[in-house]
C-alpha cells in the first residue's frame, strides 16, 4: 500500500484502494477523515484555523475552515461519494493544559467543524480529539483511522 501525505491546509480525495492517506503532526489542527464504503471514495482534509481575513492563501485551499470544508466536500461528491453514505472521523486538536481563549485555536476550529457537519447532516462516526498530544493519522478505504502521538501510550 502506498502512502500519500496530506500537508497542512490541503486535502486529498481518492478512490484508489491501494492508497493510505497520512496527516502528520496535526498540532492544534484538525484532520477530517471521510469515507463512502459503497462507492469506495475516501478523503482527508487538514484544517488549521477557523477563519482568515482576506482571500484564501495560494496552494492552501483548506487552511481555514469554511472555504476548506466547502472545497473538500465538493471534491468528495465530484469523485463519486454520496452524502448519505459518508462516514466521518475527526482527529487532532492538541490542547495545552491551560490556555487563554485567544490561543485556543483548536477548540474554535473543532466547534465550527462540528456545527458545519451537523448542519449538513453528515454523521460523525468517531473522534480522536483533544489532550496534550501532537497526533498523526493514517487513513484508507479499509484502514483506520490509525492515530499515533509521541508521549501517548500507543507510541
Amino acid at each position, binding site marked *: 500500500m502506498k502512502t500519500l501525505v496530506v500537508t497542512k491546509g490541503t486535502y486529498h480525495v481518492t478512490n484508489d484502494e491501494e492508497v493510505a492517506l497520512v496527516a502528520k503532526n496535526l498540532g492544534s489542527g484538525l484532520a477530517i477523515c471521510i469515507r463512502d464504503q459503497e462507492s469506495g471514495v475516501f478523503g482527508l482534509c487538514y484544517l488549521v484555523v477557523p*477563519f482568515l481575513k482576506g482571500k484564501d492563501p495560494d496552494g*492552501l485551499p483548506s487552511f481555514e475552515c469554511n472555504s476548506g470544508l466547502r472545497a473538500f466536500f465538493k471534491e468528495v461528491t465530484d469523485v463519486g461519494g454520496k452524502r448519505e453514505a459518508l462516514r466521518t472521523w475527526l482527529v487532532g486538536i492538541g490542547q495545552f493544559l491551560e490556555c487563554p481563549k485567544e490561543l485556543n485555536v483548536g477548540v474554535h476550529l473543532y466547534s465550527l467543524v462540528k456545527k458545519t457537519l451537523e448542519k449538513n447532516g453528515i454523521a460523525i462516526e468517531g473522534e480522536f480529539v483533544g489532550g496534550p498530544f501532537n497526533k498523526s493519522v493514517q487513513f484508507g478505504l479499509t484502514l483506520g483511522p490509525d492515530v499515533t502521538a509521541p508521549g501517548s501510550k500507543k507510541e
Partner: protein
Amino acid sequence: MNMDNQQVVQPDFTLEYIFEQLTKLPTFPKVVQKALELLDDPNTTTQDLVEVLKFDPAITTNILKITNSARFGLQKQVTSLDTALALLGQNQIKEILVASGSLPFLSRELYGYGMRPEDLWHHSMATGICAECICAHIGFDDPSLLFTAAILHDVGKIVLNLFVGAKLDTIMDLAGREGFTFSEAEWMALGADHAIIGSEIMRLWDFPLDIYRAVRNHHDPDLYVQDKVSALLALSNILVVMLGIGVGTDGFRHKISPRLMEVLGLKKDDVYELLLKTWQAFTDAHEILELYKS
C-alpha cells in the same frame, strides 16, 4: 543505635551530573560569536567579517547554503563568502550566522523527548521564523535578538535528553496521571528543566542577558509576561507547537499565561494570521530545513 530497621537513603546526584555535562558540551563556535560582535560595531566592513569567517570551512559552507536558499530570495547563485555578505542585510547575516553555528547542536536525535534527528532542527528553525513573523507583525525593533533566542531556546534538551530518557516513565506519569506540566515533571524528577539548563548553556556561551533570560522563561507563565523578549519567545514557541512542528513527548503539556496576548497587544485574528505566515515561511525554507542531513 540499631540500624537494622532504618532505610538507607541513597543520595541522588542527578543534578550534579547534569551540571557536569554543561562543561563538556562543545562551545558555540567562536568565529560566529566574533562575527556577531563585529556586526554590532557600525565601523565593521564586509571584509572584516570575511577575515573572521573564512578560516572555518564548515561555517562558510553553511552560510553559502543558507544564503542561496529560496528564503533569502537572491537572484543569482552566490559562491563566495564576501559576495554573500555584501548582498545581505545586517539582520539577515546575523540570522544566518546563528542558524549556521547552531546546526551541529540542533541536528541530533533526542530519544528522551521522542524527537527524531530533524525534529529539534525543524522546531528551532520554525520558532525562529515565527519570531520573525511576529516581529514584523507588531513592529518589534530587534528581530535578530529574538531570532537567536528562538533558534536556541531548546538547547537545554540536548543535555537533559539522557536524563529525561532514563526517567521518562516517572516524568510521563507525573505529567500524565498527576496533571503536572512537563517542566514541573522535569523539575520533580531531575531537579531542573530544559529551559533553565538551556539558559545556563547560553550564559556560558556569553550570549546577552536578554537572550538567556528569555530562554530561561519560555515555559514559565509567571515569568515570560514580565519582559517583551521573553513574551515574544514564549508566543513563538506556542504557535510552532500549535503547528505541530518538531514537537516531542512534552508536546502540549504546558500552561499558557492568560496575560500573554494582552502583554503583546494581540488578538485571535492576529494568531490565525501568524500561523499562516509562519507555515508559509517555514515551507519556503525547505533547503535550510534539509541541512540537518549534512
